[in-house]
């Protein structure tokens, strides 16, 4: 009975924080980019914006003073995802991370889903090498876990294999592929054109496809229902 108000208060605090970030800090950063840096530093600015989106989750999580059990379960799931990424490293893009993140989001809630995704993205790069791509991967994995949790709460995502696999494949292809490709384009050219974006999507098509298939495959195996 008492869980409800706390939940709502927590959500609203995060919403407030997110609103401040989105309405004040992000436009300020973009303005800073346009006027001070001459509007040529897309990558730097987008990197900052991606980092801002991760901050509210971290802050809310810290303020809540999580219990040991909660911490450990998140850590274990991330570790399994990192180890899984390591185990399949010889197959490019064939990684179980998204599948595990989705399972975490569905069974532990949106917040835990985001954290498992972001932590996995961060820690796996200690093994594979940190770089300017780290925040993008953290954000993409995290947001997929968050979405999985929210959709499950709203009842749109069911605990059936078909529904999970469908969501897994689509979200990997559209969300992960969609955002990561923008990130890599900004990293490579730092001059944005629609044509170049299209070319990036086309050249990244098979990578995203393999990644999506891998997610569906791992969800098929792991989702025991």
């Amino acid at each position: 009975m008492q869980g409800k108000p706390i939940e709502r208060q927590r959500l609203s605090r995060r919403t407030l924080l997110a609103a401040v970030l989105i309405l004040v800090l992000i436009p300020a950063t973009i303005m800073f980019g346009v006027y001070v840096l001459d509007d040529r530093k897309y990558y730097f600015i987008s990197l900052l914006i991606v980092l801002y989106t991760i901050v509210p989750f971290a802050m809310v999580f810290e303020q809540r003073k999580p219990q040991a059990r909660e911490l450990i379960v998140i850590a274990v799931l991330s570790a399994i995802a990192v180890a899984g990424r390591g185990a399949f490293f010889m197959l490019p893009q064939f990684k179980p991370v998204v599948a595990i993140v989705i399972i975490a989001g569905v069974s532990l809630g949106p917040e835990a889903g985001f954290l498992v995704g972001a932590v996995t993205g961060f820690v796996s790069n200690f093994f594979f090498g940190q770089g300017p791509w780290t925040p993008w991967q953290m954000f993409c994995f995290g947001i997929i876990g968050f979405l999985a949790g929210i959709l499950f709460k709203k009842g749109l995502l069911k605990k059936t294999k078909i529904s999970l696999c469908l969501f897994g494949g689509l979200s990997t292809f559209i969300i992960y592929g969609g955002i990561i490709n923008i990130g890599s384009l900004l990293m490579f050219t730092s001059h944005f054109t629609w044509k170049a974006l299209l070319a990036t999507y086309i050249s990244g098509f098979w990578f995203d496809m393999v990644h999506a298939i891998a997610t569906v495959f791992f969800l098929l195996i792991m989702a025991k229902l």
Partner: protein
Amino acid sequence: MRDSFASYHPIVNFGYFVVILVCSMVFMHPVFQMLALISAITYSVMLKGSRAIKFNLLYMLPLLLFMAIMNPAFNHAGVTILFYLKNGNPITLESILFGVAAACMFVTVIIWFSCYNEVMTSDKFIYMFGTIIPALSLILSMVLRFVPRYMTQIKVISNAQKCIGRDVSQGNILRRARNGITILSIMTTWALENAIETADSMKSRGYGLPGRTSFSIFRFDNRDKIISMFMISLIALVVIGAVKGENTIRFFPSVKAAEISPFSLIVYIAYFVLCMIPVIVNVVEAVKWKHIESKT
């Protein structure tokens, strides 16, 4: 070779890398870029020796060339038209120059990150953020510990399964795949069970109770103070230069860079010294060591 810059306080290390990465990403002026690129390469070679040379030549050089070519193919702004492509799009001098500059910037950032990976080990990162985000950095340290642990455990499980003929190296392909999945499932169950035990053990030892302190091996001593003061004054100089517009360059429609003046020379030198701090620290330390050695 032992890196003495890495033995400084984590705040100094982390601050240095944050400043240097932001500067490398923001300053597109050719002089600044060359200075950053030279220092990044020098430091990476100092840290990793022949591995860094191989990495820079094998991966960074082709990447640089590829990116420099990519940009003019998509970007047709600029006033100096060199020639036209078959489909009628012009290739301009400005877009080629911009491609080279952007490629340089990217390669510099990647090389800085490769240095970062050597210097900022995960324990330093966790120490730094332990006070701001204690729960998350605890998660980070646990994940970092769990990964190698799971790798060992998976070998234990796999050996046990091999005794009863159910390892991934036994049977036909379908059989092998099924055995592999069983091993992973055993692994996951073990991991989760083990996790609950760890959590209970943490709780019974008072995790989360108020008034607990943590131990760390890092100390902010005098040399850290000296080097941070030095770094801050250099950063101030560079920032003044940035505000005065000494490091801006405009690529489109025509290339226009800030001219070289006595003041800009000072800013260049300050930036170069800032980038070279780890290298300078290492060289000074090596000279000191040689000096002490020769005395005895």
